[in-house]
């Protein structure tokens, strides 16, 4: 794997993205150590400008310390981003693999479902799902996973369709390997690189979607996420710009880092552009 690591990290953007992502991850995990008070603790009057005494990022519309909020907010965004992507990958790979490998009716069915998701305004569908499951962390994760798995299924199906024709797969069938051994032993390892690339992009998208839900008031009211901070500051923005600008910047930087990582993975894992 060392050659993969070398070619991944020699790309400036990928290395920068990875570093930024690690910093954000550390801040999110170590928040309780860095900050004494919790994100909900009210430390003073609301809407104090950044740089006021003891508040380098200012206070939000409830008088809470923005810096602490941003640190804890990272946890929710990353948690939702990663778990919903894992869910989507799970469903997507399973369905995509079966459709791609066996073809026929399963393939047609999957194609119809992915088409349905393309035609229906997916964000409205997500809003309906979250609204009827009552807004919470769980409903956001399930909702996002449900609307993003078709994307993965389409990619995995494409990979399996092309790999299935490759001669080493036909050789495996000639040798008498069982379907399961062929799918998981032979094809899946070769389909991993596109899956890894798309999943890093999807974590980014999931974070954007979660923040959109929270912005529209469909987020979990007991949790503080970057999206809910922006949502809560729609009016405050007119008198206190930082309440909106800072959480938005955090989302952008995180998703940018994830996209850089995705690009880096794409180059490093793709043998054609290894040099």
């Amino acid at each position, binding site marked *: 794997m060392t050659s993969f690591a070398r070619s991944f990290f020699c790309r400036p953007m990928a290395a920068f993205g990875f570093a930024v992502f690690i910093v954000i991850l550390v801040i999110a995990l170590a928040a309780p150590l860095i900050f004494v008070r919790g994100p*909900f603790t009210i430390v003073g009057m609301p809407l104090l400008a950044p740089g006021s005494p003891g508040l380098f990022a200012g206070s939000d519309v409830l008088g809470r310390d923005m810096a602490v909020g941003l640190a804890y907010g990272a946890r929710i965004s990353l948690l939702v981003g990663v778990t919903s992507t894992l869910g989507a990958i799970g469903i997507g790979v399973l369905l995509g693999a079966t459709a791609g490998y066996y073809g026929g009716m399963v393939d047609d069915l999957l194609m119809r479902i992915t088409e349905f998701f393309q035609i229906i305004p997916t964000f409205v569908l997500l809003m309906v799902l979250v609204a009827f499951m009552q807004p919470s962390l769980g409903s956001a994760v399930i909702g996002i996973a449900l609307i993003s798995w078709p994307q993965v299924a389409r990619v995995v199906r494409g990979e399996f369709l092309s790999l299935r024709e490759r001669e080493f797969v036909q050789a495996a069938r000639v040798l008498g390997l069982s379907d399961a051994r062929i799918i998981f032993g032979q094809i899946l390892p070769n389909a991993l690189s596109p899956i890894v690339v798309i999943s890093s992009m999807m974590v980014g998208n999931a974070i954007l979607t979660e923040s959109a839900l929270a912005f529209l008031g469909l987020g*979990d009211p007991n949790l503080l996420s970057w999206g809910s901070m922006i949502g809560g500051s729609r009016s405050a923005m007119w008198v206190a710009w930082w309440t909106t600008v800072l959480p938005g910047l955090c989302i952008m930087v995180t998703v940018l880092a994830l996209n850089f990582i995705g690009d880096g993975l794409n180059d490093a894992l793709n043998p054609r552009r290894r040099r």
Partner: protein
Amino acid sequence: MLDRRAILGAAGLLAFPAQAWSLSGRDRIINAMMFDDPATLCYPLNNTRIIQQICGNINESLLLFDWQFRPHPNLAHAFEISPDGLVYTFHLRNDVSWHDGVKFTARDVVFSCGVILPELNPRSRNSFSHIDTITTPDAYTVVVRLKQPFNAFLLSLMASSAPMMPAHIYEGTDFRTNPFNFNPIGTGPFKFAEWKRGQYIHLVRNEHYWRPGQPGMDGIYYRICPTPEQRMVAMETGAVDLAMADDIDTVLTSRLKANPDIVTFTGAYNGTAEIFVMELNQRRWPFSDRRFRAAFLHAVDRQFLVKAINFGIGKVATGPIPSSAPYYDPKVLTLYPYDPARARALLDEMGLKAGLGGVRHRFGIMLTPDGGGAFTRSAQYVKQALSEVGLDVFLEATDWPTQLRRSGNWEFDCDTNSYGEYGDPAIGTSRFYLSSNIRKGVPLTNLQGYINPEVDRLFPKAAVAVSHQEAQACYSRLQQILTHDVAMLWLYERNPVLFYNKRLADVVTGPNGPSDGFGAARLA
């Protein structure tokens, strides 16, 4: 539909200043705002604030009330009350006609107070249940005989509780589906002109209005403005002249207050006198224990809640009757100053010791779906304050259907709401504390399940007290009991702020605020 090429060509006209339209053509028009299209324009049927404010210009009441809640003539130019307080005689004006030209007579009053109001409006039903008979000796006199004296009867004739409805339109029809609910007929200074759904409601001046010199303006537009920021920008750019209660988020009031072109008017809503409250479901332990409720109030710094969280709008609430309302008696109230230590002591006394993680008890607070506005922020502050004394709260997000269903069916630990007093405790306050008003499935009733026999006895006694002093004695005792029992968690008196453009004058003339209509409004 606009043709795309024209748009692109027009985009070149950016030099076209947005505010070029001059004020001349439209300066005699009042522009107000609303969140969204109201469900109907039948005054008593849907008693939300926006309907009161629109229909206040169309349907009038028999009497108007000044800032001291003293009655003044309106559709009834004079009235007498019998010494025993049982018979009220109203002498109606004979020069009033409905917008469709039909004469306004006693028949309309009998129909309104006797039939349509009790049927459609729960508050009117309470007040008019005291009526024994209504007779009309002649076309312009109405004699109302009560079963027993009811000193709040006059106040219950305020427009928001008793608007006069046209008998010739509604009699014998199904009030809820009468087409005139969307094309209201009244006697007021303005009449209904047009309702363009999704855009605006337009009222025009009533040429044959009986009060001389009114209305001072030619028409009113209520335009749809969904978000608080949009409403604020509309006020600042002068596109709109009037921002009523709840139109402007408290966060932004500082910005409008600082604007020289905009007049800030507090107290416009003393008539309704709303209190922001939280209701604990007293059927469930530990909320049934008075000490828990006392600890709740001690743990919340209500001064900070008003000053910081609500940006200085409103006043700390101390009891069931707001300080600006009649019968308010500060002497008898049990007060609960901000004292977290006292709260912890009370909880210990109850046996709610701090368990793992310092948590004594965990319960939910159901939010009102106000899109992250003042109510949600207050609940978020309360959650934080209670966590300091070991009470772990989880906020439950809801949308309108869920909030109504769960509060009506008592499926909540703690509910947030805002209740108006409407001028007299018998009208606006008693409904939340009488055990007779515990009715499953119906919002805005005694949802908490608070039962106190003495309270059940005192409220009706106060309502029928002949003299003011006798009523005051009852209400003082009631305030003493209710505050001692912490019957409800009164947080702060909201008294929302009204903003209007300085080009207008006499926009608000009484405690009922915009709900009395803009007949008097004129150019400054």
